[in-house]
């Protein structure tokens, strides 16, 4: 046998395609503190992954705490950065993943997620007496829980045993099955197996099979949800302002979260973006952002005003640069149970003032539901488990968002033209235009107040909708729905065409019109295959039959040309 060589030779390494690895991760980076250079990229695994200069710079700064506040020992946090790599086309596995997973877990090819494990400990053997290093897992997948756990598992191994451990575990990951929603996945890594489950888009049942298949107490088998935010624990200090925050997030107001550690600000930013679930938050957001980031200038510009972004920051310098931002949440160093933040109308005084709180002059359109807040706060006193508290909070927010969206869903469905306006011989009609005033007219009979009548929430719904219509959240939602409607209309028109009597239609038509029709149908069949027009195979077959119907009516010379082209 030939595996006697003590060094793995180059050819063998090249044999690995890394296809399996890239289904899950983009790469793993090690960032160190170089006494000459500051933060510097030490190594990237697998070795072939090339990062752009700007990406490297951003990763390096985002991998380390950005302030003088400390973080001794080990710190974990989550970052999100622009994917500046040229190739934004998703892999086939990722497209199929996106079509099956819930929207909140979908891949956005413009951004990479980073899961950071930072270690800072005294080490007298080093020149400055400190060991400072980060391991960063970069991935397109927003699996905050799974990847944070994996990072917490592999980083200490790496600090202990060096690069060979990262090299070896990349080969483990290369063998992982692709991330398919709806299946239980076993992911072997460094002698343990992570068992996880990616939910399906329409499946709201919990992952019961996950708990079922494994014996408790077996430390080689690590069960974990891909995504899991303890909403209650994170939002607890701002709980009494939860409805105000929900409004700020749904209308995509700029928000900055200031904290003493990237751990705190990153989890708060993630929690804020989840407040409006199942609606996708479509503004930009950076769970942790530094003054060195390539988008620092763009975000802090006073000329253009604050963009619709949620930023998490730790550097006190931001108190000055983002002084003009309208909404600030300042987290305290002590995230104790009893902390309850006050609402303040003015921006935090620069630098000196460290009082935690929610700083905003925003006047909410809705009144808050004091009952739910009371209910959750009473759970704190009665020591209700965090999971139950989070579930209560999540359900309340879900009801609120759904009540807000249902009238819009209903209205947009009414923009569909009547069936009789669809003709086999004309282009598919377009949906009627979205008219805010028509929408507002529906509110009285079917507004959110109807579904929310057992809560205390009431107020100026029209005002809130108007503000929402100007937000990226609305634009993204509207575009998705509008595209769905358009495709549906095209499908209906194709269906009509597929059963139309074209032999009759060609009678007495000028040849040029008939040829035009042939080309149109061909074009439509082509579009069907290209786009996601929801038509079934039977209709496609029938369309092809109709096509031959017309072609057969044409003179032979034309027949040949049309059949070839």
């Amino acid at each position, binding site marked *: 046998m030939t595996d006697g060589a003590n060094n793995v030779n180059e050819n063998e390494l090249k044999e690995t395609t890394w296809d399996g690895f890239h289904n899950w991760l983009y790469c793993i980076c090690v960032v160190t503190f170089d006494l000459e250079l500051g933060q510097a990229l030490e190594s990237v695994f697998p070795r072939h992954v090339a990062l752009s200069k700007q990406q490297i710079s951003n990763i390096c700064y985002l991998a380390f705490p950005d302030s003088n506040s400390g973080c001794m020992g080990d710190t974990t946090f989550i970052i999100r950065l622009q994917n500046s790599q040229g190739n934004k086309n998703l892999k086939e596995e990722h497209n199929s993943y996106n079509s099956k997973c819930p929207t909140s877990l979908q891949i956005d090819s413009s951004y990479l997620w980073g899961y950071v494990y930072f270690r800072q400990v005294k080490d007298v053997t080093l020149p400055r007496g*400190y060991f400072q290093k980060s391991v960063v897992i970069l991935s397109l997948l927003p699996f905050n*829980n799974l990847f944070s756990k994996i990072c917490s598992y592999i980083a200490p191994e790496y600090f202990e045993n060096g690069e060979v451990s990262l090299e070896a575990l990349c080969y483990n990951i290369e063998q992982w099955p692709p991330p398919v929603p709806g299946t239980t996945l076993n992911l072997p890594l460094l*002698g343990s197996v992570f068992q996880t489950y990616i939910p399906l888009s329409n499946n709201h049942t919990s992952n019961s099979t996950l708990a079922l298949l494994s014996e408790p107490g077996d430390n080689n088998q690590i069960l974990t949800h891909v995504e899991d935010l303890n909403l209650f624990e994170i939002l607890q200090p701002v709980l009494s302002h939860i409805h105000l925050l929900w409004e700020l997030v749904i209308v995509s107001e700029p928000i900055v979260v200031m904290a003493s550690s990237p*751990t705190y600000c990153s*989890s708060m930013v993630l929690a804020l973006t989840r407040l409006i679930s199942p609606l996708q938050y479509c503004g930009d957001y950076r769970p942790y952002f530094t003054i060195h980031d390539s988008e620092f200038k763009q975000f802090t510009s006073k000329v253009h005003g604050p963009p619709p972004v949620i930023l998490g920051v730790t550097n006190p310098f931001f108190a000055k640069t983002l002084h003009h931002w309208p909404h600030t949440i300042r987290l305290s160093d002590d995230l104790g149970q009893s902390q309850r933040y006050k609402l303040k109308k003015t921006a935090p005084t620069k630098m000196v003032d460290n009082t935690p709180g929610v700083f905003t002059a925003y006047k909410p359109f809705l009144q808050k539901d004091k009952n739910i807040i009371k209910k959750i706060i009473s759970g704190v006193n009665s020591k209700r488990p965090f999971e139950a508290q989070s579930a209560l909070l999540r359900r309340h927010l879900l009801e609120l968002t759904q009540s807000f969206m249902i009238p819009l869903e209903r209205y947009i469905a009414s923009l569909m033209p009547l069936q009789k306006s669809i003709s086999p011989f004309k282009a598919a009609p377009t949906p009627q235009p979205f008219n805010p005033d028509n929408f507002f007219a529906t509110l009285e009979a079917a507004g959110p107040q109807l579904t929310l009548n057992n809560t205390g929430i009431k107020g100026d719904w029209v005002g809130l909708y108007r503000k929402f219509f100007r937000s990226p959240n609305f634009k993204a939602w509207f575009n998705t729905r509008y595209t769905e409607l358009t495709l549906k209309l095209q499908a209906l028109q194709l269906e009509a065409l597929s059963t139309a009597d074209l032999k009759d239609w060609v009678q007495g038509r000028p040849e040029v019109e008939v040829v035009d029709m042939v080309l149109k149908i061909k074009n439509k069949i082509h579009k069907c295959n290209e786009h996601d027009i929801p038509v079934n195979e039977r209709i496609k077959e029938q369309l092809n039959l109709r096509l031959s119907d017309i072609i057969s009516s044409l003179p032979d010379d034309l027949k040949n040309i049309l059949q070839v082209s």
Partner: protein
Amino acid sequence: MPQVRSNVMKMLNDEVPEDRKITTFQGPYKMECTPYQQLDFTEMTYRKCSEEKINWLKLSKMIIIGDVSVGKTSIVNRFCRKIFDSNYKSTIGVDFEVEKFCILDVPFCLQIWDTAGQERFKSIAQSYYRGAQVILLAFDFTNIKSLCNCRTWLNEALGVSSSLCPFIFLVGTKLDLMSKTIRQNMEKNIMKAAQQLNAEYWAISSKTGKNIDKLFCRIASLCFDNSIRNEFQVKKQIIIGTNLLSSNENANQNFVRKCEGFKCSK
């Protein structure tokens, strides 16, 4: 809930191919060369399996260790994929396979971690050894030095998984390259070594497949019986999802770790 579980068990059961269904306990290669004298499943195992009281998927972890190029990966490939190729590339770090069995109508999984024999991976091997219930020490019949090194390999592995009491197998590979007489001469020494290592001795060939299936059935039988005994003898409290909660707690601790006084290194 038990009903749901047994359905899942049944589903798992149906996936297992015929040659992975075990109904009789596999004995050792040589009765005189094993520390494990067990020849049948314990009565409790028979009883629990027939009562369908097994709610957890039984799972055991096995590691294969030994010198470079003794044929560790070949053992796994012969068993899991029924293939043999004398030109395997060397393992980088560790490979992983899961093999499903069905023992007395109960599903059982064997996790097989196939490690690299190279020196430069030794530093990380420790993490892969953790919690192994089976240690397979592989040596090459045609390379006697690889047998001598088994003691070192075992010590390293036991250093990590010492809390458990793993089953140890000493497995000679490339049996097809040996004439019968030479092997019989060698066997006296090998069996002595096995005794010192407190291991059960097997001789196999991945090329011809000789004894491979028997060896893995032996491993599966012993592990399965052992894990059922562990589950029912020790009255441990079993709560669904305990593992999930506890690992969450750890994560939270890390997550909420406080920042204390920054020492600026500039």
